[in-house]
Structure formats: C-alpha cells, structure tokens
C-alpha cells in the first residue's frame, strides 16, 4: 500500500455498533452497525478523504480516530501507540496531537465565550503558550486563518458560518497537532466559502506538514483536497485508491455510481455509461448478507448475496483496493 511513507494512523478491524433507541427493556438488543470491520492506513502528510452517503459510518470513524468514543472491536494505532487500549488519562497526554474540526459551526464554539478565551484557554492549559505571549499567539492564529485581530473580543454569534469555521480551524491548530480530522467541514457552507476553506486547509497543510482525514459527502470537495479516497457503504469501505485513480478508474459499482451522480459542468463530457443508483440505502440495523451493496447493484450475482467481499488489490502495481471482484470483468464484457 503506502510503502513510501510511514503511516501515522493504522486502523485495523474497527467495529462500532450503537444500540437502537433506549432498548434496556427489550431482550434482544438491536444494534446499528455503524462501522463494521474497517481497516486502513493513513500516511504522514497525506489527505485521506472518506466519502459515502449519510449514515454510512464515515463520521463514526472520525470519532473513533479522535478517541471520542471507544470502538466495540478493532484497534487504532496512532504513531505506533494503540489508542483504543489507553486509559482516559493516558489519552490526555497525546490528545493535542490529533484535533478535529466540525460540520456544525453553530455548536462548535461556546456561545458565551469570546474568541480570545476560546483560543487561549487550551493553549494555556497545555502550556503551549505562556501568560506573556498568549495574546500574540492568538493573534498569530487568527492571522493564519485569515481573520482580523479585532475578532478577539467578539462572540461566536457575531461571525458568519465561514468565519466560525476558520475559528474552529484556528482552535484545532492552536495545539500544534499532526493529524486533523475534518468532519464535513464545508458541507454546511455555501460554495464560494467552501472553496476558501478548502484552500485554507490546503495551504495550512503545506505550511505545517499536517495529515488530514477529510470526511465529506460532496465528491467535489473531497476530490479537490484528498490524495487518497476511501469510499464507504453501510459501514464498510468498498474501495480505497489514490484520488485520481479512483475517479478515473472506479472499480466498484458503487463508486462508479457515486462518480456518475456528481454533476459534470462540461456537457460534452456527460454522455457516458452512467450507473444510476436505485432504491434506498438498507437499514444498518440489519445489513444485507454478503456484499452489502448487492440489493442495489445492477451487476449483482447469486454469489454476492452469500460471500462477504473483502478488499482486494486491483492491480499489483498500485495501492488501489476494491471489494468487488466482478465489476471490472463485467465492464470488459460489455465493451
């Protein structure tokens, strides 16, 4: 896979189930299979995009990497340390190294605190800044994310969504992290602001040698920022490849459908053999047997209903992994 760079995060066999409703009383507790046996690596300095429909488990993966929740099974190594086995106090020692930015900018900042307090308190607590230079540090952070110094004494409600997202980024960066988990950071922003935030993230990455996990459902944004992309469907990764490779040469019918579903500005390029997904996403409480995509897959075979498809190397020279062994051969037949 990514042999050239050492991985900063290794996820192995990650599973996270949530109980359905408040089912203390019901005998057989039903579970949402939010993330079901997912493994991948993130190389230092890269941006791993995670895409998928709502409810496919992409944000859950983000929360597990951030150690905000404990997985039901599986391990997550951060820089060689298994964070799933750490106690809360052990975790506190390394938490500053991975930070998160959120989708909902309304709830990501305490409405009763000024920007200065929001940014300064964690730095002072972790002794990243001293009482003497903390003001300078906060101003430097604001400058870095493109906000005026006068923002210091304002409250979150005085900012627009894009500006609040910038503050969120500044807060995440204030602790000098190495890994940034971006949970749909631009999904709630309008398009022009999305581009600004994405450009800001890209330039910050170069400046500070950051590693990103970029979770999103808009393919455009994910493609723009990611070096590698993982496609998720119903709690599983169905395909993972370099961004360019994934878009030009999708190997999984679901990936192909996703790529086809994103609008193409140039009308001359539009006419292609498009896959249109039909039907609803099945319930993650009772996921389909075998390949989870088979009820909606136009190429589904009898075998797909029985065998749980594993990620396999598509071609030995690349790092392209795909969970569907049939699609490529199907395509060849059609042509």
């Amino acid at each position, binding site marked *: 896979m990514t042999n050239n760079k050492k991985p900063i995060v290794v996820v192995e066999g990650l599973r996270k189930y949530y109980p359905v409703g408040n089912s203390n009383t019901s005998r057989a507790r039903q579970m949402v299979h939010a993330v079901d046996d997912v493994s991948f690596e993130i190389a230092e300095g890269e941006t791993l995009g995670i895409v998928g429909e709502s409810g496919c488990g992409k944000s859950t993966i983000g929360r597990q990497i951030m150690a*905000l929740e404990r997985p039901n099974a599986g391990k997550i190594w951060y820089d060689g340390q298994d964070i799933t086995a750490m106690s809360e106090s052990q975790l*506190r020692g390394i938490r*500053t190294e991975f930070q998160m930015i959120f989708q909902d900018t309304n709830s*990501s900042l305490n409405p*009763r605190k000024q920007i200065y307090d929001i940014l300064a308190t964690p730095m002072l*607590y*972790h002794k990243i800044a001293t009482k003497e230079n903390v003001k300078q540090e906060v101003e430097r952070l604001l400058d870095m994310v493109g906000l005026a110094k006068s923002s210091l004494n304002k409250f979150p409600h005085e900012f627009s969504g894009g500006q609040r997202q910038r503050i969120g980024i500044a807060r*995440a960066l204030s602790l000098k992290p190495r890994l940034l988990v971006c949970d749909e950071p631009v999904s709630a922003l309008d398009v022009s602001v999305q581009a600004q935030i994405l450009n800001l993230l890209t330039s910050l990455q170069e400046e500070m040698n950051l590693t990103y996990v970029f979770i999103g459902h808009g393919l455009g944004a994910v493609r723009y920022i990611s070096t590698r992309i993982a496609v998720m469907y119903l709690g599983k990764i169905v395909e993972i490849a370099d961004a360019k490779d994934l878009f030009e040469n999708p190997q999984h019918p679901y990936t192909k459908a996703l790529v086809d579903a994103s609008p193409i500005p140039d009308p001359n390029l539009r006419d292609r053999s498009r896959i249109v997904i039909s039907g609803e996403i099945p319930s993650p409480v009772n996921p389909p047997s075998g390949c989870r995509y088979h009820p909606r897959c136009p190429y589904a075979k009898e075998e797909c209903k029985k065998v749980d498809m594993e990620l396999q190397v598509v071609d030995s020279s690349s790092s392209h992994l795909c969970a569907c062994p049939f699609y490529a051969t199907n395509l060849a037949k059609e042509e």
Partner: protein
Amino acid sequence: MEHKGNMQRVTKRFMKHKLAVVSLIFLLIMIILAILAPVIAPYNPNQVSGGFSKPPSMDHLLGTDQIGRDMLSRLLYAMRISLFVGAAATVISTLIGVILGLLSGFIGGVVDSIIMRITDMVMSFPYILLVLVAAAVFEPGLWSIVLILGFVDWPGVARLVRGNVLSIREMNYIKADIAAGMPKRFILFSEILPNTIAPVFVYATQVFAISILDEAALSFLGMGVQPPTASLGNILNGAESITVLTSKFWLWVPAGVLIVLLVISINFVGDALRDALDPSV
C-alpha cells in the same frame, strides 16, 4: 463588562414587556420597604399601640389587629419575613437542584439513575402533606420553614439542569474540549454551567413565587412562622373567623392583596426574563 453587548440586548428585550417593568419596579419598592421596615414602620409590630381591632385612622393607617398592634407596621415586618423565607428557600433549592442536576447529567449511568429516582420520589410526595409533617416533626419556626421549603422545591431545578447538561454535552464545543484534552472540571464549570444558568434563573423566579405562597399557606395553618413574629401567612390566620372576614377587612385584605401582587409581579418578571434570555429570539 465582557458581556456588555449581551447584557444590553437582554435589557432591551426585557424592557419591551411593560408589565414586567412595572412589576420589577413594584418588587424593588417592596424589597426596599421590607429592608427598611425597622426605620419606616410607625410602631413596634409586636407591641400594643392602640385599641383592639380599630379600623384605619390617621394614627394607624391600616388600623390595628385584635390585640391592638399597628397593622401597617406588622405588614411591613411580615413582608420582610415572607420575602426572606422565599428568597432563602429559593437559594437553597436552586443550589441543591443545580448540584444534583449537574452531577446527574454529567456523570450519567448509575449516579444519574439514583439521583433521578430520588427526584421522582420527592416530586411524587403530596407536597403540602410532606411540608406539614416536616413542620410537625421539626419545631416550626423561621429557619425550619426555610429549610423545609428549600428541600422540597429542588427537583424541578435538578431536572431542568440535567436536561440542559445532557443537551450541551452533545455540543461540538464540548467534543472539541475533550479532543483538546481539557480537564473535566473545566468542561463542567466553565463550559456547561454558564450555559445552563439562564434557564435556571428563570425557573428560580417561579420557585421564589411558589415559596412565598407556601410560606403563607404554612403560616396560615399555624405550622410556619410562629407568632408573635408577623408573616403574611399568619396575618391571614386572623381571618379564620367569620366576623373578621365579613366586617374587619383591614385585618386581612392588605396582607392578601400583598401576597397576590408579590406573586404576580414575580411571575411577570420571570416570564419577561425567559423571553429576554432566550438566545434564539
């Protein structure tokens, strides 16, 4: 100073409620009168200073009671006692409620279950009966009634705070704090608590009003503040007799009206505060 902008907005929204502004002014005047009772009361409230049950006159503006004490002086002192009982009971119950609510919502699990079951228990007790029994077991008096009311009124506050904590706990800024490795005490006291204070404040005004009513009810029944100390409730106690009720209005109308006005204006202020403090408006 930090919240200057915020305070101004809240004040402005509060001012829109004319009734609440009038109520607030009335309350402030009453509180000042109560505090200044020893200075402005024309007579010693517990000393006989005129004839028995005399109607209002220039000497005794609100007349005298059955044993010749000046009613105006007694009313001023009574208000002092009633407001004090209401305020002290509110402070006690709010403190208990906030602490238990914070613990319950923040720690969760077994602690949450235990605290909430106790809350349900206290809530499901017949209120006035509990207070009567408690008043009978402990010696009735000023402090016992403060404590009794304080220990009875907290479940509402606890539930309110717990609900707030549960919703604030899911906010992204709390997740950001956890991700930043901030300590629990910071999250609890610096992030969660300030965000629950506004609704608690509003709720406390209701508790204040209810406490004044409860004190009046208890004292009326003779289980509250004990004579000769005057309270709005035990002044009303004199109205138990039919002759007083029908022909000696000055013995009970002022105290009754005062209770009604105090409770109504506290509730108006509370309603306006709720609107003014609601950030979604």
